[in-house]
């Protein structure tokens, strides 16, 4: 599945890419299926279990797609955070 990028440099990960847009579609779908699947499974209806299973599979797919990118963003950003926080406090204290 090379269509999905799984190795990111920090600067590449800062861009909004198709991986993000895919997750914007999958993520609400998971919630939607999770709500219906849980209710119908509790009534022991077979299609409830199928829907619930589909939501869990989609959850794994979503994490597989977005996790490498989130890791890259986080790693890079945490290195800059100290400087940004100092800047923020200057604004807060009307020093800038």
């Amino acid at each position, binding site marked *: 599945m090379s269509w999905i990028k799984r190795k990111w440099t920090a600067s590449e990960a800062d*861009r909004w890419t198709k991986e993000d847009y895919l997750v914007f579609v999958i993520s609400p779908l998971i919630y939607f299926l999770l709500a219906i699947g849980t209710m119908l499974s509790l009534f022991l209806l077979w299609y409830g279990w199928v829907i619930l299973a589909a939501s869990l599979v989609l959850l794994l797919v979503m994490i597989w797609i977005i996790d490498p990118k989130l890791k890259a963003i986080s790693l890079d950003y945490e290195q800059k955070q100290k400087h940004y926080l100092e800047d923020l406090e200057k*604004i807060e204290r009307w020093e800038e």
Partner: protein
Amino acid sequence: MVHFAFLDWFWVIAFVILMTICGILFYNLGKRSMADFFLAGRGLPWWLPATSVYATHTATDTPIWVSGVIYQYGLRGIWYTFFSAWCAISAFASTRIFRRSLAYTQAEWQTLRFSGVGAEMLRGWIAGWQVFMNMFILGWVGMAMGKLCNYLFGWPQWIGLITFSTICAVYVLAAGYWGVVMSDFQQGVIAFLVIAIVSFWEIGVAGGPHGIIAKLDALGESWRLNPFAFSGLTSGDFPLVWFLTMLVIAVIGGFGMGTAIDWYPEAQRIQSAKTVRDASYSIWSGTALIIVRNALWAVAILGFFAMYPQIKETAQYEMAWYRLGFEYLPVGMVGLFFAAIVAIHLSTISAHLNLGASYATRDLYHHYFKPKASERELVWVGRISTLILLLGSFLYGSMMKEITQWLIFALWIMAAGIWLPSILQVVWWRFNSWGYLSSWIANLGLSWLIVWVLPEFRVIPVLPDYLQFWIMMILGSLIYFPVTFLTRPENMDRLVKYYVMSRPIGWWKPVRKEAERRGLLDAEVKAAEGGS
């Protein structure tokens, strides 16, 4: 009235002591600085703010609200609770952007995104509004506890309102957000387990899954099992257009900040996460737990309907989940059930006490009154603000009667006119502080006009809520778009700084170009974005 045996009281007292001690234990961490008192030092792994998201949004009034919509509409009523799905997109869009801004609060973010007098006015307005809203939420959640204690023990409502909020204030005053998030973890676990156990028990009492289905069949009410049993495209009590409107509001709203009233407590949890990744996962998974919880409740409440299908009074059927628990659980379990209710109550109260105090301290006191205040002083201001919020909530709580009516007003109407502007401020560089400010002012006027005043004077009929939303959105846009275009864009220095730090999604090309020109973006990104 419910009879409590020794074992029941044992559970309640043990849990209250445990929760309070758990909060107070973090006193030394909470007092270190304002960042500790309000954000736990920005160092939490994702699962701590996640349980806090879940626990905060599981309050004593939540099963009352969910019981009301499920009893009335059947399983399709679950969509009334689906507004929380804004986190689906937010977790990977606005959460990421907000976490990178490092703003303590949404009010502070306004002065990072916008500049000048307009930004300061927005910050002051949102901070003041949030102090009020948190007091208001504390009042209505507290009053739900008052009602419950009245139902259970026959106590006057004010006793339930004051007693538990005061117990909770002890650890919020001592340890701030450290106390909130650590006790939330414990309360969230207890609450989820007990909600699951009690709901399964209730489903059993109602005849089990097959028994409930058979009873609904016999009553001619099997449509209640269908989550998509719409009453028509635009007609009836549950039209398809309402459902579609809800989906748009909930899902697309995730691109914005402040599109739902839950954004504000979530914003605090986002900033308390130790990385951008932790922030995203905390918001997503906390909301997933909320969705599972609502589904559990829905089935148990449908079981209640199968047992008692004739209840007409809202105040009666709103108590469905509580009634099943207190009337059918065995001795000893009732106390465990009540202890879990106390847990969900304390988690909500503690979160809103600390959140309201953060706006009062960071945005009002520190930013406007005493910018040079020491960390020690700011922690004390946080504590005093917490105390004022607590006392104010008692006043508001004693003024509220109909929980559902207030909740529908707050969830639906108060956010309607600012829904689109709250997205635009995130995704469109040209949207400025005057546009956003005017949308707030327009919404305040329009919501009262469209919902209350004009129908009262028979100028317009009483409109269905989905229509109110679209009308307010269109009328509001006739005000804030001209205001935006008739006033200057934000200062480019501020926009560039914000862009480089937060990397917002959407239409930011002129700002990106300027950032490139100043050499503030990496060469690799420049090359990649040059073609976009």
